[in-house]
């Protein structure tokens, strides 16, 4: 097994990977930017090296620096986590050229799957169903508009190099087609340095359902069932669960086999995810393949009992997959909620600030994957995801109830989070019924606001008690309750600036 692994990431995923390494007696090297000096992944690792400037391109995206540090520390492998360099073929190639094992697939495969157009073509050729669309080279607006008209509306404009919902536009009619193409191009350019876009048929009542796969370097490959990831905001997942409420055993087997076919078509090894779009009639289409560990991997771990992070390490070390497809089964039901520093009542605007206090719910089958701590600054440099809370139990209903309980005990003070919002979403009667599509949040939570009714009386009472305990004023004698001159009257609430 590897002697020492450098983890080229931060936050909860770096913590997760360091723990997996340590359990396997592998030494770990953390890297960190200046703002992350005190972060849990740095404290947990056996060694740590500063990357300096917090700007991603100077720190967690700095290929040269990271490779150099890995060499200095004597690391024989690098785990990229997700995001940052995880799907950067140049990084994978750079590792290879320095004889450091990149924990992921071959650089060529990353390259191919990173190019959405080429990926789709490859899959089509391999017999994997894909969504009708245009993925051609003619990127002038006129050609794209023409192709769009052929596909028909609604249609999607997507960044070829995209991911995480960036550079995506839904177009409902001809009038705004060109404008949307331009917007997607601009956003794609800014996020990925590439403004190639493609067009595809927009699926009504779409669900986002993905399959986890695990493949070794010796051609063995299995799938670990699906994850239902339809609940999204701004095209980013916020709640994931497995099993999916709509997948039946036949469909599960069919989609699982298709995922394996997709992975085989590119000689894939490592953990990976094949994302499908499923329509209202349970037709499914290949969307993309993620060549890394997924944010939502814990729900698969909880229902299959398999440790994906450890298997990544074993596979990268050349070990054979000893798990057989027939040995893998799902049990119970698992749900993950992503805790973001964001304001759901202001368009999910990321929030920044200092985490003053944090408390995690604990209990049987509650898993907290987190990289935050009291005193931590949430900066605009990185993704605003703070942590993930994952629960599992005997069935979906129980897991929903467990998640509601867990969220109600989850305390993060100092920055605005989506915790209250998640509670409302997961308690929603349509969610309970399993009636979810990727439009779920838009359909039911468009104008959601926690505090429409203002400060609840419980909060007012708690504040008053707190201030009373912490004030230096002595206990005072009560005014007589019937006293007409008592200042206890006339207290209430008013709006600043309102006429009186």
């Amino acid at each position: 097994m590897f002697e020492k692994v450098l983890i080229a990431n931060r936050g909860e995923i770096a913590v997760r990977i360091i723990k997996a390494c340590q359990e396997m007696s592998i030494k770990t090297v953390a890297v960190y930017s200046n703002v992350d000096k005190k972060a849990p992944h740095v404290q947990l690792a056996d060694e740590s090296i500063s990357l300096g400037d917090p700007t991603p391109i100077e720190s967690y995206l700095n290929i040269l620096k990271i490779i150099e540090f890995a060499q200095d520390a004597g690391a024989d492998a690098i785990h990229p986590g997700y995001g940052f360099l995880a799907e950067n073929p140049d990084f994978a190639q750079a590792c290879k050229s320095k004889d450091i094992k990149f924990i992921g697939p071959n650089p060529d495969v990353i390259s191919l799957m990173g190019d959405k157009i080429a990926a789709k073509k490859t899959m089509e050729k391999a017999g994997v169903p894909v969504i009708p669309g245009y993925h051609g080279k003619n990127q002038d607006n006129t050609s794209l508009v023409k192709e769009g008209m052929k596909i028909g509306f609604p249609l999607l404009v997507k960044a070829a190099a995209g991911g995480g919902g960036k550079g995506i536009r839904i177009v409902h009619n001809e009038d705004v087609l060109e404008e949307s193409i331009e917007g997607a191009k601009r956003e794609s350019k800014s996020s990925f340095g590439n403004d190639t876009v493609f067009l595809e048929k927009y699926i009504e009542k779409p669900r986002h359902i993905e399959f986890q796969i695990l493949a070794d370097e010796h051609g063995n490959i299995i799938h670990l069932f699906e994850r239902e990831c339809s609940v999204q905001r701004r095209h980013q997942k916020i709640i994931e669960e497995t099993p999916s409420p709509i997948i039946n055993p036949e469909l599960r087997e069919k989609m699982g086999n298709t995922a394996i076919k997709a992975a085989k078509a590119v000689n894939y090894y490592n953990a990976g995810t094949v994302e499908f779009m499923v329509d209202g009639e349970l037709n499914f289409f290949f969307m993309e393949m993620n060549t890394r560990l997924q944010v939502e991997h814990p729900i698969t771990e909880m229902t299959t009992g398999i440790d994906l992070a450890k298997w990544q390490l074993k596979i990268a070390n050349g070990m054979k997959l000893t798990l057989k497809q027939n040995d893998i089964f799902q049990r119970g039901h698992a749900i993950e909620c992503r805790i973001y520093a964001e304001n759901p009542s202001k368009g999910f605007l990321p929030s920044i600030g200092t985490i003053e206090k944090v408390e995690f719910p604990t209990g049987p089958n509650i898993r907290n994957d987190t990289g935050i701590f009291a005193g931590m600054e949430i900066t605009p440099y990185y993704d605003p995801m703070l942590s993930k809370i994952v629960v599992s139990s005997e069935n979906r209903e129980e897991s929903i109830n467990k998640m509601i309980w867990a969220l109600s005990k989850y305390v993060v003070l100092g920055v605005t989070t989506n915790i209250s919002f998640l509670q409302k979403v997961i308690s929603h009667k349509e969610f309970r019924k399993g009636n979810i599509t990727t439009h779920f949040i838009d359909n039911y939570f468009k104008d959601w606001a926690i505090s429409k009714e203002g400060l609840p009386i419980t909060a007012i009472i708690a504040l008053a008690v707190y201030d009373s305990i912490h004030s230096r004023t002595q206990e005072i004698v009560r005014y007589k309750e019937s006293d007409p001159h008592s200042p206890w009257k006339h207290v209430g609430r008013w709006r600043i600036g309102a006429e009186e």
Partner: protein
Amino acid sequence: MFINYEHENNVYNVSVERRKDLYFITYDNTEYKVKAEEIKPGHLKIKLGDRIIKSVITTGKKDKFVFTDGNVFKVKNVELSGAIKTKKRKEEGNLNSPISGKIVNIKIKNGDIAKKGDVLMVIEAMKMEYLIRAPFNGKIKKVNFKEKDQIEIGQKTIDIIKKEEA
């Protein structure tokens, strides 16, 4: 003891009187008698009749954060003065930046006429775009930044003069 809490532009005026572990809290002409203790720093257990309220409170640099019933509220203790009471109601259509970020695109220049809903400026932060739109039909008086400028949350992006409705 009188306390004023500001929460999302509303001011809540509360009075509290303490007798050992009993607290008499008056708000909106109602008095609540509760029994309370701080079970560990910032953790309150409050008994209001049959009901138990559990709350976690912490004081940040500027604000106070209160967790209760699974929700978090950000409040500020404020002194009420004549000034604050007569503070002007915010104008419809906020042209302040919603986020600290970089200005990546400015669509208009001084003197331009903008139609309500027009995108005036694009700000990028955390890899996402935020659009500043015209809150009404009007004439651009002054663009306060140029492209590639850094802008802080709350800073005014553009001054615009409302055009009288026809």
